[in-house]
């Protein structure tokens, strides 16, 4: 009846009303959660996946809203990149969200979907890792440091649903990236933060999985300034090489981006 019919494999569509219903609807294997669809629908169009059903979680009330708590900002997993970009609570996080893809992608794509998707060039990975956020799921709390396991691979169990992300408020933080001009994804992106628990520096887009730069963190712990990074570099060895950039170029970008992120340096 419709001409688009041949495109995606057929699937059922479910829209549960609560987290409990959504998790119960997931069989752990053949079904998939659907949030903004900005990554999942692209994969389905390419027939890279064949789920039997999509469980739409975008409108679950438990996944919505941004709450300012003392010392923390708790962001519902269903929050769109656009809503986070408009939230002034943590400026570096707003800047990060506002740099994702384009207007239309930001209006649909969600924080939870971006984290679960774990694209090696995902912007949100740098934010959660750089701030040391906690990822709250339907069954437990996962520290950002334990969340990303590899390319498109996370610590989430089959059927586990991200409900919210709790970010500590930084004293100072910044995010800088070099955008791929076509997609907006970072060729490399660096998030720098000084929180009550110390300094954190996280890199996305440059390897299979986001990572922290402990050497940079130690240097900045005593002196949170561009000068403290003098002479520090990153070896190209483990970094990605692809059609967008060589490993050596990414290695050269990272210290530059760290300095730019520090330069924004303003209040969280």
């Amino acid at each position, binding site marked *: 009846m419709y001409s688009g019919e041949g*495109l995606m494999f057929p699937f059922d569509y479910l829209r549960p009303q609560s987290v409990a219903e959504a998790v119960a609807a997931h069989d752990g294997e053949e079904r998939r959660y659907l949030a903004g669809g900005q990554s999942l629908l692209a994969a389905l169009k390419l027939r890279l996946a064949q789920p039997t059903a999509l469980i739409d979680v975008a409108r679950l009330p438990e996944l919505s809203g941004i709450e300012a708590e003392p010392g923390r900002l708790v962001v519902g997993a269903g929050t769109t990149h656009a809503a986070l970009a408009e939230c002034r609570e943590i400026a570096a996080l707003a800047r990060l969200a506002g740099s994702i893809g384009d207007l239309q992608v930001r209006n649909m794509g969600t924080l939870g979907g971006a984290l679960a998707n774990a694209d090696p060039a995902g912007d949100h990975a740098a934010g959660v890792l750089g701030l040391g956020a906690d990822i709250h799921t339907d069954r437990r709390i996962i520290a950002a440091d334990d969340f990303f396991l590899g390319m498109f691979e996370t610590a989430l169990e089959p059927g586990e649903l991200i409900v919210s992300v709790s970010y500590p408020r930084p004293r100072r933080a910044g995010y800088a990236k070099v955008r791929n001009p076509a997609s907006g994804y970072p060729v490399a992106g660096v998030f720098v933060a000084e929180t009550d628990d110390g300094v954190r520096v996280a890199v996305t887009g440059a390897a299979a999985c986001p990572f922290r730069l402990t050497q940079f963190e130690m240097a900045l712990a005593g002196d949170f300034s561009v000068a403290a990074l003098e002479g520090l570099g990153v070896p190209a060895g483990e970094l990605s090489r692809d059609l967008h950039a060589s490993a050596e170029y990414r290695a050269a970008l990272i210290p530059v981006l760290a300095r730019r992120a520090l330069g924004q340096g303003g209040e969280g």
Partner: protein
Amino acid sequence: MRVAFTLNGRNVEAETEPRILLVTLLREAFGLTGTHVGCDTGQCGACTVHLDGRAVKSCMVLAAQADGRSVLTIEGVAAKGENGGESLHPLQTAFRDHHALQCGFCTPGMVMSGLDLAAHLDSPDETAIRHGLDGNLCRCTGYRPIVEAIAQCIREKG
């Protein structure tokens, strides 16, 4: 499955399948062919419509995701006058004034993104408008007249 939503201010219903895209439903069930398909991969923005007031790419949204929500397409942008006539929206007039369209293929998507920007930007800042148009490709105009048309619309809203 059945979907029901508000389309250009009217309550509508349609029979569809879960895998049918919103753009396909709009074009084929409702005959609203102003929403174009340029790439079908989320790159070009020709299929941009508003979902609950925000610009989205309707080739990257399932028709099922619009169920119970509000959709605005280019056909719903002009104000309906008496006698069935229509008067252009100020942004459409600005597009005409600035020669912001040539072949017109990108135009519906540009207007829908432009309306989102006009509603949410406080000032007609060129950098912000260009950043806001990252998701809309135009092969003809070179973008400058489109940016100027959106800037004029923002200035007019004061």
